[in-house]
């Protein structure tokens, strides 16, 4: 059974309960009073809007629309601007719920295949945890040499690379991008400790949420 099927069976189509237990800050979803302030405050919910803005997502969760929610590109549009959070009259941690839903969808393999923000997140975290610090060059190279599905695609990389050439040149000239980073660049000393610590953290979290250690 896939992780997705397993969860669907475990929660017997009670998607609200599933969200409450599996998604970061998911226990807040039931408190939404459907005022719509979040959707109206969200900068990326315009031209074009999200497929399902936050208010709608919360309603869909309560209406049990599991697949539709978890496969939606919507929550991946969140820029973490926190506009919704500071304005929500019910004080829902909307930003975190969006992140949490995205994380859960990704974990279950339901996130859209073509989702650049998903790739970005993965790349960033991998880059950061490898040495303990972000290597901006390999991070951006990685970003631009991957195609929409997250596979390395040199052709696309070159196209994007050309688009970004001016940007990179500008940064280089201003000494804000260091080509020598390709050889390692910034890193932490205790990388081993960091890796062990993170492995433990993953294990603990998976156990608490009843997920497979993957």
């Amino acid at each position: 059974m896939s992780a997705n099927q397993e969860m669907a069976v475990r929660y017997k189509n009670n998607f609200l309960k599933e969200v409450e237990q599996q998604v970061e800050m998911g226990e807040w979803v039931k408190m939404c009073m459907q005022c719509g302030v979040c959707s109206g405050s969200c900068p990326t919910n315009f031209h074009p809007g999200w497929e399902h803005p936050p208010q709608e997502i919360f309603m869909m969760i309560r209406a049990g629309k599991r697949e539709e929610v978890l496969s939606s590109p919507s929550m991946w549009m969140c820029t973490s601007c926190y506009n919704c959070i500071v304005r929500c009259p019910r004080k829902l941690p909307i930003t975190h719920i969006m992140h949490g839903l995205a994380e859960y969808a990704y974990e279950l393999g339901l996130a859209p295949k073509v989702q650049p923000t998903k790739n970005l997140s993965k790349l960033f975290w991998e880059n950061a945890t490898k040495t303990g610090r972000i290597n901006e060059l390999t991070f951006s190279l990685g970003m631009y040499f991957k195609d929409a599905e997250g596979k390395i695609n040199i052709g696309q990389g070159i196209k994007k690379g050309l688009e970004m050439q001016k940007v990179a040149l500008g940064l280089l000239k201003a000494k804000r991008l260091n080509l020598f980073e390709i050889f390692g660049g910034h890193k932490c000393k205790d990388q081993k400790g960091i890796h062990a610590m993170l492995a433990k953290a993953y294990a603990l979290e998976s156990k608490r949420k009843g997920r497979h250690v993957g």
Partner: protein
Amino acid sequence: MAEEKKFAAYICKGCGLGDRLDVDALAGVAQKEGKMQVVRQHDFLCNADGVAMIKNDIANEGVTHIMIAACSRRAKTEAFFFPNNAVARTNLREGVIWIRPDTEEARETTQDMAEDYVRMGCAEVKAMTAPAGNANTGSNRTLLVVGGGLTGMTAALEASKTGYPVVLVEKSGQLGGWAAKLWKRIPAHEPFKAPADTGIADMAAQIAADPNIKVYLNSTIAKTDGAPGRFVVQIATESGAVSTEDIGSIIQATGFDLYDANRLPHLGYGKSPNVVDQAGLEALAKAANGGPILRPSDGKPVTSVAFVQCAGQRDTSGEHLPYCSGYCCNASIKQAMYFKDSNPAIDTTVIYTDLRTPGNGEDFYRSAQEKGVIFTKGKVGSVAPGGNNCVVNFHDLILDDQNAQIEADLVVLATGQVPNSGINIDMSAEEKAEEAAAEAAAAEATASGAQPLQFSKKVSVLNLTYRQGADIPQFKWGFTDSHFICFPYETRRTGIYTAGPVRRPMDMVQAREDATGAALKAIQALENAQLGRAAHPRSGDLSFPKVRLEGCTQCKRCTVECPFGAIDEDERRFPLFNESRCRRCGTCMGACPVRVISFENYSVDTVGSQIKAVDIPDEFSEKPRILILACENDAYPALDMAAMKRNEYSAFVRVIPVRCLGSVNTIWITDALNAGYDGVMLMGCKHGEDYQCHFVKGSELGRYRLSKVGDTLKNMNLETERVKDLEVAITDIDNLPRIINEYAQQIVDMGMSPFKGF
């Protein structure tokens, strides 16, 4: 009382009056033109020395009539309280110096204004007599409470605790009304998280133990006669026996009926036993007595329940209640908790279009969310009854899903409150005919079950013997009329108060508050009646309308127009005034075509003589004169407040306060135009559906009367703009001066009236 009249004028020089005005000249005007026998000036009239001076004149000089030229009549009322004398106040401070610039050019017109006001004050006081008070009073101190529900019980207990005996009449066999039928109530105390005990049993016990409260069960009011302080009420008991009680004042707390759910077959009511209204659910909860609530169809525990909000309410089609009852969202939240508190696994969904949870309901709502009640924003189209469960079809308004569905064992319809207010006495003959026709049509079409929507009842509650009808006038949809903003319990029948859902839809917290407020007002009313004093808004006024029957033509305008049903007819068909029912609005006085109604301190003459006293400069003076008749409840205070802010306005206006626009007799306007005034402004409260008029109907009746002034203007060959009717609210402090100035300019542009000097 000494028939000898002696007039005295007191002119104050304080508050800057002495610096801004030529007070000696004012004194001269009072003496020569005003014919005041005593004229005194004082540096600070309202201080102890000034007041002592006046008192000394009353005691030793035989002064009977007092004209005070100082500040607004709304200021220093305690200092200038001379109850045994006729007192006129003329307003030189708020009316003159505070609204005029302190400049050399303005000096002359400001002084003109002040001198006119002194003339007017003198003229007014000469036309007045000191109110002698109403001898026709009653002194009964017993409160009658009609209705033994939560509102009525609260009113009875509160009044009794304050020391007044109470007669409580309940038509059913038990106290408690709707509240007694509830399993639990919406919480009224912190932390507003869970349903609470109704407390009704405890209240009923308190009433039973209270020797001050006499309870009639299974009883109705057969007849209510009299007036505040001396009502005589006949109570019909089940046995057919009639008891008579002497009553001081009355509280009607007759509550509501639930909207008839049989009118909602599309929501499954009547088609499945598993569709109930909120009362039906309370009955199930009571039967369950804390255990699982059982499904009526087969007696199995309910595993899923759906609440349909606004069932037959907030309807725009005309078929159902157009209004929001305001309590049923909280009631559904409470009922949803009956399920969640006993078993969190029960699927509990509330389908609403707007969730309205006034007061502390917001906390209650949040608590229900915490308990896992699902709130779904949607509009229910239909409920399809199945064998043991139902399908609720709704339009999900957030997901815009027209075909959303929920299956539930039990469906609860949140229907609303229909007031129990008795018959609609204001219904016109045509409306009655229409209603009868509709009923006849419906009787034929009973198969369709479509009964026309009716708000009022066929049976009277109070059976008043008043000429204007047997019950309290209604406002809309059967709710009794009350001044919503300022005097919520006050009805249009003095000494009779309505409280609770008969007045407007409300919940128990609001009903208790209502009951307490109404009890206090009712006590105040009977105390006032005993002293012959008016109730609000002229509370304390000892004057009352007197009619010179010799001149009366029996036109009945006064008996029809009195907004408070104070005037009956005697056996010779002359108007019969019930002074204690009267609010002293003067509407009857304004209505009387032969002007035979007057008050001792307010009459056609007290105002008319002021109008005539103003000095009208000739056509070539470039000094037009504009008469303002300003309602003393809102417009006059607004002018006073404008003055406090030193908002300036034209020196051409002369303001006379009136009790109500309804008291304005058209003769004043005709006289003013004939005397050469160039314009007349009438300032009164808003009328109509959202009226602000303190006498409810006064400003509407006054305006109707004044709408006829157009003919007069036409006959006189005058422009219609020379009379202007203005709706003024007490907040128009900045607007009013601007409007006055614009009007003054308009008059200047129009040119002077040709009627000067006649």
